Protein backbone atom coordinates (compact mmCIF):
# COMPACT_ATOMS: atom_id res chain seq x y z
CA UNK A 1 0.00 0.00 0.00
CA UNK A 2 1.42 3.33 -1.03
CA UNK A 3 1.76 6.19 1.40
CA UNK A 4 -0.85 8.38 -0.22
CA UNK A 5 -3.39 5.58 -0.05
CA UNK A 6 -2.73 4.92 3.63
CA UNK A 7 -3.06 8.62 4.47
CA UNK A 8 -6.36 8.66 2.67
CA UNK A 9 -7.38 5.60 4.68
CA UNK A 10 -6.47 7.36 7.92
CA UNK A 11 -8.45 10.40 6.90
CA UNK A 12 -11.47 8.33 5.87
CA UNK A 13 -11.18 6.27 9.02
CA UNK A 14 -11.83 9.37 11.12
CA UNK A 15 -14.80 10.41 9.04
CA UNK A 16 -16.53 7.09 8.66
CA UNK A 17 -14.81 3.99 10.00
CA UNK A 18 -14.17 5.41 13.45
CA UNK A 19 -16.26 8.55 13.43
CA UNK A 20 -15.73 10.06 16.91
CA UNK A 21 -19.41 10.62 17.58
CA UNK A 22 -21.20 7.89 15.63
CA UNK A 23 -18.69 5.05 15.94
CA UNK A 24 -16.40 5.69 18.89
CA UNK A 25 -19.15 7.46 20.85
CA UNK A 26 -16.69 9.89 22.39
CA UNK A 27 -17.29 13.52 23.35
CA UNK A 28 -21.04 12.99 23.26
CA UNK A 29 -21.68 15.58 25.94
CA UNK A 30 -20.46 18.54 23.87
CA UNK A 31 -21.95 16.92 20.77
CA UNK A 32 -25.41 17.10 22.36
CA UNK A 33 -24.88 20.45 24.05
CA UNK A 34 -23.83 22.53 21.05
CA UNK A 35 -25.88 20.98 18.25
CA UNK A 36 -29.14 22.77 18.95
CA UNK A 37 -28.30 24.71 15.79
CA UNK A 38 -26.38 24.10 12.60
CA UNK A 39 -24.17 27.15 13.17
CA UNK A 40 -23.15 26.19 16.71
CA UNK A 41 -22.26 22.68 15.58
CA UNK A 42 -20.21 23.95 12.68
CA UNK A 43 -18.21 26.46 14.74
CA UNK A 44 -17.50 23.93 17.46
CA UNK A 45 -16.45 21.41 14.81
CA UNK A 46 -13.97 23.83 13.23
CA UNK A 47 -12.43 24.60 16.62
CA UNK A 48 -12.08 20.88 17.40
CA UNK A 49 -10.64 20.13 13.95
CA UNK A 50 -7.87 22.65 14.51
CA UNK A 51 -6.99 21.66 18.07
CA UNK A 52 -7.19 17.94 17.28
CA UNK A 53 -4.77 18.23 14.39
CA UNK A 54 -2.30 20.42 16.25
CA UNK A 55 -2.43 18.31 19.41
CA UNK A 56 -1.85 15.13 17.39
CA UNK A 57 1.14 16.60 15.56
CA UNK A 58 2.71 17.96 18.76
CA UNK A 59 2.19 14.73 20.69
CA UNK A 60 3.71 12.74 17.86
CA UNK A 61 6.70 15.10 17.60
CA UNK A 62 7.65 14.77 21.25
CA UNK A 63 6.37 11.24 21.83
CA UNK A 64 9.88 9.95 22.57
CA UNK A 65 10.38 12.48 25.35
CA UNK A 66 7.11 11.85 27.12
CA UNK A 67 7.66 9.55 30.06
CA UNK A 68 5.07 6.74 29.90
CA UNK A 69 4.15 7.16 33.55
CA UNK A 70 3.12 10.78 33.12
CA UNK A 71 1.78 10.62 29.60
CA UNK A 72 -1.80 11.67 30.39
CA UNK A 73 -0.81 14.93 32.15
CA UNK A 74 1.60 15.55 29.29
CA UNK A 75 -1.15 15.16 26.67
CA UNK A 76 -3.45 17.36 28.69
CA UNK A 77 -0.78 20.00 28.79
CA UNK A 78 -0.23 19.91 25.05
CA UNK A 79 -3.96 20.24 24.46
CA UNK A 80 -4.29 23.06 27.00
CA UNK A 81 -1.39 24.92 25.41
CA UNK A 82 -2.94 24.75 21.96
CA UNK A 83 -6.34 25.76 23.25
CA UNK A 84 -4.84 28.78 25.04
CA UNK A 85 -2.83 29.81 21.99
CA UNK A 86 -5.86 29.46 19.70
CA UNK A 87 -8.01 31.37 22.14
CA UNK A 88 -5.57 34.29 22.44
CA UNK A 89 -4.73 34.45 18.75
CA UNK A 90 -8.38 34.45 17.79
CA UNK A 91 -9.25 37.08 20.39
CA UNK A 92 -6.56 39.33 18.92
CA UNK A 93 -6.84 38.77 15.18
CA UNK A 94 -10.37 37.56 14.49
CA UNK A 95 -12.67 39.44 16.86
CA UNK A 96 -15.81 38.74 14.87
CA UNK A 97 -15.20 35.01 14.77
CA UNK A 98 -14.12 35.07 18.40
CA UNK A 99 -17.38 36.66 19.46
CA UNK A 100 -19.10 33.59 18.00
CA UNK A 101 -16.62 30.87 18.88
CA UNK A 102 -14.83 32.09 22.00
CA UNK A 103 -17.10 30.13 24.30
CA UNK A 104 -16.51 26.83 22.53
CA UNK A 105 -12.75 26.99 22.29
CA UNK A 106 -12.14 26.89 26.02
CA UNK A 107 -14.31 23.81 26.40
CA UNK A 108 -12.10 21.76 24.11
CA UNK A 109 -9.47 21.22 26.81
CA UNK A 110 -11.61 18.50 28.32
CA UNK A 111 -12.70 16.72 25.13
CA UNK A 112 -12.36 12.96 25.33
CA UNK A 113 -11.79 12.54 21.62
CA UNK A 114 -8.67 14.70 21.52
CA UNK A 115 -7.09 13.02 24.52
CA UNK A 116 -7.97 9.58 23.19
CA UNK A 117 -6.35 10.22 19.79
CA UNK A 118 -3.20 11.43 21.56
CA UNK A 119 -3.10 8.25 23.59
CA UNK A 120 -4.22 5.75 20.95
CA UNK A 121 -2.64 7.11 17.82
CA UNK A 122 -0.29 10.08 18.00
CA UNK A 123 1.85 8.65 20.80
CA UNK A 124 2.60 5.56 18.71
CA UNK A 125 2.90 6.95 15.20
CA UNK A 126 5.04 9.29 13.15
CA UNK A 127 4.17 12.93 12.57
CA UNK A 128 2.59 12.72 9.12
CA UNK A 129 0.21 9.83 9.85
CA UNK A 130 -0.70 11.59 13.12
CA UNK A 131 -1.47 14.73 11.19
CA UNK A 132 -3.84 12.85 8.90
CA UNK A 133 -5.40 11.00 11.79
CA UNK A 134 -6.05 14.32 13.54
CA UNK A 135 -7.42 15.83 10.35
CA UNK A 136 -9.70 12.85 9.78
CA UNK A 137 -10.95 12.70 13.36
CA UNK A 138 -11.50 16.46 13.39
CA UNK A 139 -13.41 16.29 10.11
CA UNK A 140 -15.41 13.34 11.38
CA UNK A 141 -16.39 15.29 14.48
CA UNK A 142 -17.20 18.38 12.43
CA UNK A 143 -19.38 16.41 10.02
CA UNK A 144 -21.16 14.61 12.84
CA UNK A 145 -21.96 17.90 14.58
CA UNK A 146 -23.13 19.47 11.33
CA UNK A 147 -25.42 16.55 10.51
CA UNK A 148 -26.92 16.43 14.00
CA UNK A 149 -27.21 20.22 14.10
CA UNK A 150 -28.89 20.24 10.70
CA UNK A 151 -31.67 17.87 11.72
CA UNK A 152 -32.16 19.34 15.17
CA UNK A 153 -32.42 22.91 13.98
CA UNK A 154 -34.61 22.01 11.02
CA UNK A 155 -37.04 19.98 13.10
CA UNK A 156 -36.77 21.90 16.36
CA UNK A 157 -36.83 25.48 15.11
CA UNK A 158 -37.82 25.15 11.46
CA UNK A 159 -34.75 27.10 10.47
CA UNK A 160 -31.21 26.55 9.19
CA UNK A 161 -28.23 28.67 10.24
CA UNK A 162 -30.69 30.97 11.97
CA UNK A 163 -32.78 31.58 8.84
CA UNK A 164 -36.34 30.28 8.85
CA UNK A 165 -36.95 27.69 6.10
CA UNK A 166 -40.18 25.90 6.93
CA UNK A 167 -43.20 27.71 8.22
CA UNK A 168 -44.82 25.23 10.58
CA UNK A 169 -44.96 24.70 14.29
CA UNK A 170 -41.60 23.13 15.16
CA UNK A 171 -40.98 20.06 17.30
CA UNK A 172 -39.58 21.86 20.32
CA UNK A 173 -38.20 18.67 21.84
CA UNK A 174 -35.58 18.42 19.12
CA UNK A 175 -33.62 21.41 20.37
CA UNK A 176 -33.81 20.23 23.98
CA UNK A 177 -31.15 17.78 25.22
CA UNK A 178 -33.51 14.82 24.84
CA UNK A 179 -33.89 15.64 21.14
CA UNK A 180 -30.11 15.64 20.88
CA UNK A 181 -30.02 12.04 22.02
CA UNK A 182 -32.85 11.10 19.63
CA UNK A 183 -31.02 12.62 16.69
CA UNK A 184 -27.71 11.09 17.71
CA UNK A 185 -29.18 7.63 18.28
CA UNK A 186 -31.05 7.54 15.00
CA UNK A 187 -28.02 8.76 13.05
CA UNK A 188 -25.77 6.28 14.84
CA UNK A 189 -28.15 3.52 13.83
CA UNK A 190 -28.17 4.79 10.27
CA UNK A 191 -24.37 4.79 10.11
CA UNK A 192 -24.30 1.22 11.42
CA UNK A 193 -26.90 0.16 8.89
CA UNK A 194 -24.91 1.70 6.02
CA UNK A 195 -21.81 -0.02 7.31
CA UNK A 196 -23.39 -3.45 7.51
CA UNK A 197 -25.30 -3.10 4.26
CA UNK A 198 -22.51 -1.78 2.06
CA UNK A 199 -19.25 -2.51 3.81
CA UNK A 200 -19.97 -5.79 5.53
CA UNK A 201 -19.79 -4.34 9.04
CA UNK A 202 -16.07 -3.78 8.97
CA UNK A 203 -16.05 -0.03 9.38
CA UNK A 204 -15.75 1.30 5.81
CA UNK A 205 -13.80 -1.66 4.54
CA UNK A 206 -11.42 -2.00 7.45
CA UNK A 207 -9.69 1.35 7.09
CA UNK A 208 -6.38 2.00 8.83
CA UNK A 209 -7.25 0.38 12.12
CA UNK A 210 -5.19 -0.29 15.17
Amino acid at each position, binding site marked *: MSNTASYWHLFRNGIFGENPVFRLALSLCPAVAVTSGLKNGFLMGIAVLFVQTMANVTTSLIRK*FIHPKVRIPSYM*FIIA*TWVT*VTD*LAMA*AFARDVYAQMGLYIK*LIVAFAIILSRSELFASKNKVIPSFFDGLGMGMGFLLALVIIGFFRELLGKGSLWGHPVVDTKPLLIMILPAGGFFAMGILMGFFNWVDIKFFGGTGAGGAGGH
Partner: protein
Amino acid sequence: MKDMFKITLSLVAMFVAAGIIMTTVFARTAPIIKVAKEREEKEARQKLMPDADDIVEAGTWEPFGKHAKYFTAKKGGEAIGYLISTYGKGYSSYINILIAVGKDLKIKEIKILSHGETPGLGDEIDKNYFRKQFDGKSPEQIELVKIEGTDKIQAISGVTISSRAVTNGVKEAMEFLKGKYGVSG
Protein backbone atom coordinates in the same frame (compact mmCIF):
# COMPACT_ATOMS: atom_id res chain seq x y z
CA MET B 1 14.88 6.92 42.39
CA LYS B 2 16.30 7.31 38.92
CA ASP B 3 12.83 6.96 37.44
CA MET B 4 11.45 9.65 39.67
CA PHE B 5 14.11 12.04 38.48
CA LYS B 6 13.35 11.25 34.86
CA ILE B 7 9.62 11.75 35.27
CA THR B 8 10.10 15.08 36.99
CA LEU B 9 12.54 16.25 34.38
CA SER B 10 10.26 15.24 31.53
CA LEU B 11 7.30 17.09 33.02
CA VAL B 12 9.28 20.17 33.99
CA ALA B 13 10.82 20.45 30.53
CA MET B 14 7.39 20.26 28.95
CA PHE B 15 5.84 22.78 31.32
CA VAL B 16 8.65 25.25 30.74
CA ALA B 17 8.37 24.89 26.97
CA ALA B 18 4.58 25.29 27.06
CA GLY B 19 4.96 28.22 29.43
CA ILE B 20 7.29 29.98 27.05
CA ILE B 21 4.96 29.42 24.11
CA MET B 22 1.93 30.69 25.99
CA THR B 23 3.77 33.69 27.43
CA THR B 24 5.03 34.70 24.00
CA VAL B 25 1.59 34.47 22.45
CA PHE B 26 0.06 36.31 25.38
CA ALA B 27 2.62 39.12 25.25
CA ARG B 28 2.02 39.57 21.53
CA THR B 29 -1.76 39.42 21.61
CA ALA B 30 -2.58 41.21 24.88
CA PRO B 31 -2.08 44.78 23.60
CA ILE B 32 -4.10 44.06 20.44
CA ILE B 33 -6.91 42.52 22.47
CA LYS B 34 -6.91 45.49 24.85
CA VAL B 35 -7.23 48.05 22.07
CA ALA B 36 -9.95 46.05 20.32
CA LYS B 37 -11.87 45.63 23.57
CA GLU B 38 -11.74 49.31 24.38
CA ARG B 39 -12.99 50.17 20.92
CA GLU B 40 -15.83 47.67 21.19
CA GLU B 41 -16.82 48.96 24.61
CA LYS B 42 -16.87 52.52 23.32
CA GLU B 43 -19.11 51.47 20.44
CA ALA B 44 -21.37 49.60 22.84
CA ARG B 45 -21.72 52.70 25.05
CA GLN B 46 -22.66 54.85 22.08
CA LYS B 47 -25.15 52.25 20.91
CA LEU B 48 -26.90 52.02 24.27
CA MET B 49 -27.18 55.82 24.48
CA PRO B 50 -27.91 56.81 20.89
CA ASP B 51 -29.14 60.27 21.89
CA ALA B 52 -25.95 61.26 23.66
CA ASP B 53 -23.41 63.33 21.78
CA ASP B 54 -20.79 63.03 24.49
CA ILE B 55 -20.10 60.19 26.93
CA VAL B 56 -17.59 61.06 29.63
CA GLU B 57 -16.06 58.81 32.21
CA ALA B 58 -17.34 59.74 35.66
CA GLY B 59 -15.24 57.40 37.79
CA THR B 60 -14.57 53.82 38.75
CA TRP B 61 -16.20 51.48 41.22
CA GLU B 62 -15.68 47.91 42.38
CA PRO B 63 -18.48 45.41 41.90
CA PHE B 64 -17.58 41.99 43.40
CA GLY B 65 -13.93 42.93 43.64
CA LYS B 66 -13.57 43.79 39.95
CA HIS B 67 -12.73 47.21 38.56
CA ALA B 68 -15.43 48.82 36.49
CA LYS B 69 -16.18 52.27 35.14
CA TYR B 70 -19.23 54.43 35.00
CA PHE B 71 -20.05 57.26 32.64
CA THR B 72 -22.28 60.24 32.25
CA ALA B 73 -24.08 60.57 28.93
CA LYS B 74 -24.50 64.16 27.84
CA LYS B 75 -26.42 65.92 25.12
CA GLY B 76 -25.60 69.53 24.46
CA GLY B 77 -23.72 69.69 27.76
CA GLU B 78 -26.74 68.45 29.70
CA ALA B 79 -26.63 65.04 31.44
CA ILE B 80 -29.32 62.79 29.99
CA GLY B 81 -28.40 59.55 31.69
CA TYR B 82 -25.71 57.25 32.97
CA LEU B 83 -23.86 54.21 31.70
CA ILE B 84 -22.36 51.79 34.14
CA SER B 85 -20.27 48.71 33.59
CA THR B 86 -20.70 45.94 36.13
CA TYR B 87 -19.82 42.30 36.80
CA GLY B 88 -21.77 39.31 38.01
CA LYS B 89 -20.15 36.10 39.19
CA GLY B 90 -21.59 33.41 36.94
CA TYR B 91 -21.20 29.65 36.72
CA SER B 92 -17.80 29.61 35.07
CA SER B 93 -16.88 33.25 34.55
CA TYR B 94 -17.43 36.86 35.47
CA ILE B 95 -20.21 38.25 33.32
CA ASN B 96 -19.47 41.79 32.18
CA ILE B 97 -22.63 43.85 31.77
CA LEU B 98 -23.16 47.39 30.51
CA ILE B 99 -26.27 49.18 31.71
CA ALA B 100 -27.82 52.31 30.28
CA VAL B 101 -29.76 54.23 32.92
CA GLY B 102 -32.01 57.22 32.42
CA LYS B 103 -31.94 60.34 34.60
CA ASP B 104 -34.88 58.94 36.56
CA LEU B 105 -32.65 55.97 37.55
CA LYS B 106 -34.70 53.53 35.53
CA ILE B 107 -32.89 51.04 33.32
CA LYS B 108 -33.11 51.82 29.63
CA GLU B 109 -31.31 48.76 28.36
CA ILE B 110 -28.63 46.27 29.37
CA LYS B 111 -25.99 44.62 27.23
CA ILE B 112 -23.84 41.61 28.00
CA LEU B 113 -20.33 42.70 27.04
CA SER B 114 -18.56 39.44 27.67
CA HIS B 115 -19.00 36.17 29.50
CA GLY B 116 -17.65 32.64 29.54
CA GLU B 117 -20.76 30.68 30.43
CA THR B 118 -21.64 27.28 28.99
CA PRO B 119 -22.74 27.45 25.33
CA GLY B 120 -26.32 26.30 24.90
CA LEU B 121 -27.13 26.91 28.56
CA GLY B 122 -25.49 29.87 30.26
CA ASP B 123 -25.30 31.89 27.08
CA GLU B 124 -29.09 32.15 27.12
CA ILE B 125 -28.59 35.24 29.30
CA ASP B 126 -27.56 37.06 26.15
CA LYS B 127 -30.87 36.31 24.44
CA ASN B 128 -33.41 39.08 24.05
CA TYR B 129 -36.17 37.44 26.07
CA PHE B 130 -34.03 37.52 29.18
CA ARG B 131 -32.20 40.79 28.64
CA LYS B 132 -35.30 42.75 27.68
CA GLN B 133 -36.82 42.01 31.09
CA PHE B 134 -34.54 44.65 32.56
CA ASP B 135 -35.80 47.45 30.33
CA GLY B 136 -37.67 50.15 32.23
CA LYS B 137 -37.06 48.58 35.64
CA SER B 138 -36.38 50.67 38.71
CA PRO B 139 -33.71 49.54 41.23
CA GLU B 140 -36.35 48.03 43.56
CA GLN B 141 -37.66 45.75 40.83
CA ILE B 142 -34.32 44.08 40.15
CA GLU B 143 -34.89 40.78 41.87
CA LEU B 144 -34.67 37.27 40.51
CA VAL B 145 -37.81 35.14 40.82
CA LYS B 146 -38.70 31.71 39.50
CA ILE B 147 -42.39 32.31 38.85
CA GLU B 148 -44.06 33.88 35.86
CA GLY B 149 -46.11 37.03 35.67
CA THR B 150 -44.40 39.37 38.12
CA ASP B 151 -42.77 42.69 37.43
CA LYS B 152 -39.45 41.26 38.67
CA ILE B 153 -36.80 39.41 36.67
CA GLN B 154 -37.72 35.86 35.79
CA ALA B 155 -34.90 33.31 35.88
CA ILE B 156 -34.25 31.09 32.87
CA SER B 157 -34.98 27.49 33.84
CA GLY B 158 -31.78 25.46 33.99
CA VAL B 159 -29.70 28.64 33.95
CA THR B 160 -30.33 29.87 37.48
CA ILE B 161 -26.73 30.66 38.37
CA SER B 162 -26.07 32.75 35.28
CA SER B 163 -29.47 34.48 35.60
CA ARG B 164 -28.73 35.31 39.21
CA ALA B 165 -25.27 36.59 38.33
CA VAL B 166 -26.67 39.06 35.82
CA THR B 167 -29.40 40.16 38.21
CA ASN B 168 -26.98 40.64 41.10
CA GLY B 169 -24.54 42.54 38.92
CA VAL B 170 -27.27 44.86 37.71
CA LYS B 171 -28.70 45.28 41.21
CA GLU B 172 -25.31 46.19 42.61
CA ALA B 173 -24.78 48.78 39.89
CA MET B 174 -28.22 50.31 40.38
CA GLU B 175 -27.70 50.64 44.13
CA PHE B 176 -24.38 52.29 43.46
CA LEU B 177 -25.94 54.78 41.08
CA LYS B 178 -28.80 55.39 43.49
CA GLY B 179 -26.36 56.24 46.24
CA LYS B 180 -24.47 58.49 43.87
CA TYR B 181 -27.15 60.27 41.89
CA GLY B 182 -30.37 59.46 43.76
CA VAL B 183 -32.50 62.26 45.14
CA SER B 184 -30.59 63.50 48.15
CA GLY B 185 -32.52 63.35 51.40
